[in-house]
């Protein structure tokens, strides 16, 4: 029994339209709401009277940069309310372009205050930032190349990286600062100071896990809602999540290198920019991204909530466990390698990183592998159907080449040697256009297909244009699957 051929056109009937920009704005509003909750908890905290002198570390004055962030958040709320009212008025009579520009302005107004603290961190240590950039750039390139078949545009990865570095990092820093300022009032119990210290630092680790992972997950969510067309499945989600995690890791590394004592800076670079570069934050947010990528293909809302919630819970749990357990493991490592600190760095640091975040790295790799396998199978069906259709966009010999990443890489190297960079770029554009055509054709036939799956006809025309073949005139409608089979 043979499998029926894939239709040339998507199944008839309207596809469900999913909210894009309004959903992204809702995410930004949620971040502002979390900030407001932190402010209210701070205002309501019991007065702190400490008989112990060392608890004065929690009574330090508010940092200037945090004060500036707070003021900007309040201003942004006022601006957002104004923009929201104007938007309501414009929706009735404004054109779509003006409404979209107001929506983007609203999104920017809500998010921009969170960039102040990370920019202060990065700007006050430019040399440390420069030192960390090469390793981060190589990691970002590796993440991009994880997409063995169709790849998302590079600007989308850079957008995710930028979110992780400034907005995700900013939200996490702001919420941790709030915690430092209100936690002692609620948690300190002078009758049991030892338990108090344990409670404060455990809850601090939990707060850091929740705030940081929510900040990063918000970035994946905003990019998912705005650019849903590019999220093909778990592979796209893992890659975007990894890019967000890399950006967050960069800001965190620069922050630790700038605040720690000078003798430990190289150790911090080793642990965060070499050993833990593709672990910890990259792994945590990759799992979050996998949840969003999986949600793309699920028609039921409950299933979408389940996969996204599972990813976020995994990330929060991993971050909390790393912050709570790693210091204890670090102490054990120092005792174990007390005779040789270099050996402790070379062996001990990878060991404790593997113990704390190894499970999540393995999870991200497992999800990625499964996603790539499913992607290869779906692309194989779509490419063969496109070749059998005889449109010229994909030929039978090209099908095997497009499904073999190693053969494509060898061909690219050969073309680069023969035709230089211009020839290589043209070849890569052609291959990506063919894979994009096949991917959207495959996605259009899946159960979760929504209105963001583009029409394949312009994609086919693009491929023919890159091949130098004549582009057929646009048909009013493609024949239905039954007509194509008869």
């Amino acid at each position, binding site marked *: 029994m043979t499998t029926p051929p894939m239709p040339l056109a998507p199944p008839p009937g309207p596809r469900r339209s999913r909210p894009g920009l309004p959903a992204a704005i809702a995410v930004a509003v949620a971040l502002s709401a979390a900030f407001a909750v932190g402010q209210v908890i701070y205002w309501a905290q019991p007065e702190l009277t400490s008989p112990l002198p*060392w608890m004065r570390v929690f009574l330090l004055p508010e940092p200037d940069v945090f004060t500036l962030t707070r003021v900007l958040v309040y201003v942004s709320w006022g601006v957002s309310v104004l923009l929201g009212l104007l938007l309501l008025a414009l929706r009735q009579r404004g054109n779509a372009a003006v409404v979209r520009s107001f929506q983007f302005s609203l999104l920017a107004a809500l998010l921009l205050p969170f960039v102040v603290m990370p920019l202060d961190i990065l700007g006050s240590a430019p040399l440390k930032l420069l030192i960390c950039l090469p390793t981060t750039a190589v990691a970002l390139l590796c993440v991009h190349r994880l997409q063995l078949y169709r790849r998302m545009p590079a600007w989308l990865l850079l957008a995710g990286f930028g979110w992780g570095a400034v907005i995700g990092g900013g939200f996490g820093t702001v919420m941790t600062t709030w915690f430092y300022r209100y936690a002692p009032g609620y948690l300190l119990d002078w009758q049991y100071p030892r338990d108090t210290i*344990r409670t404060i630092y455990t809850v601090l680790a939990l707060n850091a896990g929740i705030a940081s992972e929510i900040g990063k997950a918000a970035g994946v969510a905003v990019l998912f809602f705005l650019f849903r067309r590019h999220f093909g499945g778990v592979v796209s989600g893992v890659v975007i999540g990894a890019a967000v995690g890399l950006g967050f890791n960069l800001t965190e590394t620069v922050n630790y290198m700038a605040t720690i004592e000078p003798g430990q800076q190289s150790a911090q670079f080793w642990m965060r920019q070499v050993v833990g570069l593709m672990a910890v934050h990259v792994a945590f947010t990759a799992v979050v991204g996998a949840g969003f990528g999986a949600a793309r293909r699920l028609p039921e809302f409950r299933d979408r909530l389940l996969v996204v919630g599972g990813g976020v819970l995994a990330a929060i*749990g991993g971050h909390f*466990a790393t912050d709570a357990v790693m210091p204890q493991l670090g102490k054990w490592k120092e005792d174990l390698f007390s005779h040789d600190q270099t050996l402790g760095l070379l062996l001990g640091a990878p060991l404790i990183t593997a113990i704390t975040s190894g499970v999540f790295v393995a999870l991200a790799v497992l999800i990625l592998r499964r996603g790539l396998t499913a992607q290869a199978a779906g692309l194989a069906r779509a490419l063969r159907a496109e070749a059998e259709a005889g449109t010229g966009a994909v030929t039978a010999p090209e099908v095997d080449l497009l499904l073999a990443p190693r053969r494509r890489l060898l061909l690219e190297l050969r073309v680069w040697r023969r035709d230089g960079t211009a020839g290589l770029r043209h070849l890569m554009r052609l291959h990506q256009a063919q894979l994009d055509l096949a991917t959207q054709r495959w996605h259009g036939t899946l159960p979760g297909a929504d209105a963001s799956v583009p029409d394949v006809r312009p994609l086919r025309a693009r491929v023919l244009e890159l091949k130098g073949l004549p582009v057929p005139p646009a048909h009013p409608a493609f024949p239905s699957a039954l007509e194509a089979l008869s």
Partner: protein
Amino acid sequence: MTTPAQPPEKGREERPPRPYVRMMSAAGAIGVIASVVAALVGFTTDPVFPLPEKMPTMPSIPGMPTSMPTDMPTDIPTDLPTAWPTDFPTRFPTNFPTRFPTHFPTRFPTRVPTLPPMPMPSHPTGVPELPGPGGSR
């Protein structure tokens, strides 16, 4: 001869595929387990970092001194005052009456004897006041 296709059971409809639902649910469960482990470790062990030896300075409050006063007032007395009265009587008076009537008198005396005057010490002067909450400034 082929067997006819069995009709679907009543009430069991074919569900669309739900890829990755189980895998992501398992990921969430791993996250919960990791959180429990972290909470157990955190609440049962002491933080490993030493407490800071050098304390940061307290935030300044307008009008309040930023440190304890170093110049104490010099006119505080160093011992008890010496200008106490010294002419207290050393014995009780002896000129009390010694003859008491044996029967109730029919005629009461018209003059009641009075006690001799006792010299009382005056309130000591010259004790300086202690510095108030504003310090010695």
